[in-house]
């Protein structure tokens, strides 16, 4: 009578009593079959260890942990700079004394630049209180806007091209006219260090790269049928494209002759999608909804929205993480390493869902009694929500789940925006 596998395993782990152990040991010493089975159990253990201990998959999380600790406990990392504080204070005082008389120095507030689709303008607001600071006419139906720190300018996507706006003077410094209308839901991504601007053209079925400084076309390539939302990794090596015709996610390897890989193609009815990249550029989040649920706002219409998490390296995808159908989805935004935000609005209510990046489940609802459409990342712990239907912009404090301010106006349609941190203007 041969022992079963559990008895052999219990022998290895010392889980048998003395008599059982002695009997089994005697059997195994004389039975080559059971000796081989016992060896297979040991082989399993070695295989598990070897597989899981393979170093090629082990991450180096030091930089990510350091960054997250800095965000959580900024004071602990500022101690090093204390020796410089005196010198900096003296320099600041000197600049204030000199510059305040000439008017060339002063605090520039944190600003929120918002596109106004109704009036064809780029509007600038004081991010602290929502006060309107200025506006510039940019052209028909401005939607997305990006800020280029390197050149200190903003790029605004309009119905038939892109305009570059100097953020200090609010003047147009450059313009690109597309050969044809870009189409609804065109997307824009900025590779600041490389000086490239990527524009998706759903109507033309392709993506065009522009030189950011001159807004001259460099290259055009086709991706899917109707490429819409774009997201670019911080190293500007991978461009993600959502194809609204098929609902598929594409990854373009910009370092390898724009080689395109289709990562997700569910072949179902979901035709609206939003992308958000993690801060370290290692993970991309895809929110997929259905056109009917986003545009018509019909309760229960369309398929259930779903969130996906895709590894940038390797392309492994996890999902779908299913979300409530209503109120309809409007936007997806990465708030920080731990949280995503999703805007919802049915014309009356919706608010902002906060979603954990680990669980991809909703952890909080901000202001569900008010509908919101597009989201803009603010200073840490804040998010701006834009409602084009009612013409409002709301600043939320995500940590306290509270409304800091809301500015209403019936005379405009705030669509998308970008937050630009303020600073000091110096006399040199």
């Amino acid at each position: 009578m041969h022992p079963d596998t559990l008895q052999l395993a219990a022998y290895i782990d010392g889980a048998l009593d003395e008599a059982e152990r002695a009997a089994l040991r005697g059997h195994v010493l004389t039975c080559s079959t059971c000796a081989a089975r016992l060896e297979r159990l040991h082989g399993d253990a070695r295989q598990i260890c070897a597989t899981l201990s393979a170093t090629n998959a082990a991450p180096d999380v030091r930089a990510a942990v350091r960054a997250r600790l800095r965000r959580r406990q900024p004071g602990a990392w500022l101690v090093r700079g204390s020796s410089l504080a005196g010198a900096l204070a003296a320099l600041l005082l000197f600049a204030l004394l000199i510059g305040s008389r000439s008017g060339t120095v002063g605090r520039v507030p944190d600003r929120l630049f918002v596109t106004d689709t109704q009036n064809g303008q780029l509007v600038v607001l004081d991010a602290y209180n929502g006060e309107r600071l200025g506006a510039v006419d940019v052209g028909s139906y401005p939607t997305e806007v990006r800020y280029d720190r390197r050149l200190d300018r903003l790029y605004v996507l309009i119905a038939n091209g892109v305009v570059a706006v100097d953020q200090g003077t609010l003047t147009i410094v450059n313009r690109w006219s597309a050969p044809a209308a870009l189409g609804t839901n065109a997307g824009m991504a900025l590779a600041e260090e490389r000086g490239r601007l990527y524009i998706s053209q759903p109507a033309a079925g392709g993506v065009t790269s522009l030189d950011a400084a001159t807004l001259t076309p460099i290259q055009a390539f086709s991706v899917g049928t109707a490429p819409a939302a774009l997201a670019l990794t911080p190293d500007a090596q991978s461009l993600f494209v959502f194809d609204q015709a098929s609902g598929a996610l594409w990854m373009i390897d910009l370092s390898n002759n724009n080689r395109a890989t289709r990562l997700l193609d569910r072949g179902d009815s979901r035709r609206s999608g939003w992308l958000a990249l993690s801060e370290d550029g290692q993970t991309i989040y895809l929110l997929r909804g259905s056109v009917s649920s986003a545009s018509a706002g019909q309760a229960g219409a369309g398929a259930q929205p779903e969130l996906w998490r895709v590894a940038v390296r390797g392309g492994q995808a996890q999902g779908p993480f299913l979300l409530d159908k209503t109120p309809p989805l409007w936007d997806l935004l990465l708030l920080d390493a731990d949280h995503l935000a999703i805007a919802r609005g049915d014309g009356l209510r919706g608010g902002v869902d906060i979603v954990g990046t680990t669980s991809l489940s909703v952890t909080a609802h901000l202001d569900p009694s008010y509908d919101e459409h597009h989201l803009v990342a603010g200073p840490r712990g804040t998010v701006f929500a834009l409602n084009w239907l009612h013409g409002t912009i709301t600043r939320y404090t995500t940590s306290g789940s509270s409304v800091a301010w809301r500015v209403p106006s019936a005379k405009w349609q705030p669509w998308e925006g970008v937050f630009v941190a303020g600073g000091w203007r110096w006399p040199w």
Partner: protein
Amino acid sequence: MLWELAVLSEAGPLNAERNNADALLVARIRSGDEAAFEALVLRYQAPLFSYLRGFVGDVEQARDLVQETFLRAYKSFGSLDDPALLRSWLYRIAHNQACSLLRRRRLISWLPLTFDHHSNDAALDRSAIETIRVAEALEQLPVEQRAPLLLHLVAGFAYAEVAAMLQISEGAVRMRISRARAAFRVAYGAEENDDAS
């Protein structure tokens, strides 16, 4: 005799030298030495990842959990009573994080996907196939068996250490690991007729 030696080698001896080094590391971290905390992350990120990868069965989630483990550890060093037990304390944090994740995951449906760039590959290499087979077999094990198995085999904790970590008896640990071994054999070696009866 051969198998008895194997039993000992799997558990591994208590590494007093490592525990002393850990205690020194904790003392430096508590004194505000940032480099010491980085050294701790460097030392334990790979072994923690190995354990978590086997436990939750997902590389990306294991990566997130490793980060979370160190962040929690950083905030909780005050609760570490015996600095020489740093290693088991870190694993306990990691294990608790992973259990929370698995509890949440029960509410979510997970679908594996195939991708174009994979299907273009002529064939997965042998090690990749083995990795998938091991992961799939581990996934079949109940969580209460998988954890002690991996803490013992992969992390190298002795039965008594696993028992203390999971707050169950040493006998229960031995029995759960035995059951896990047997269940893994069934799942991993499914093509073999392992029972000789």
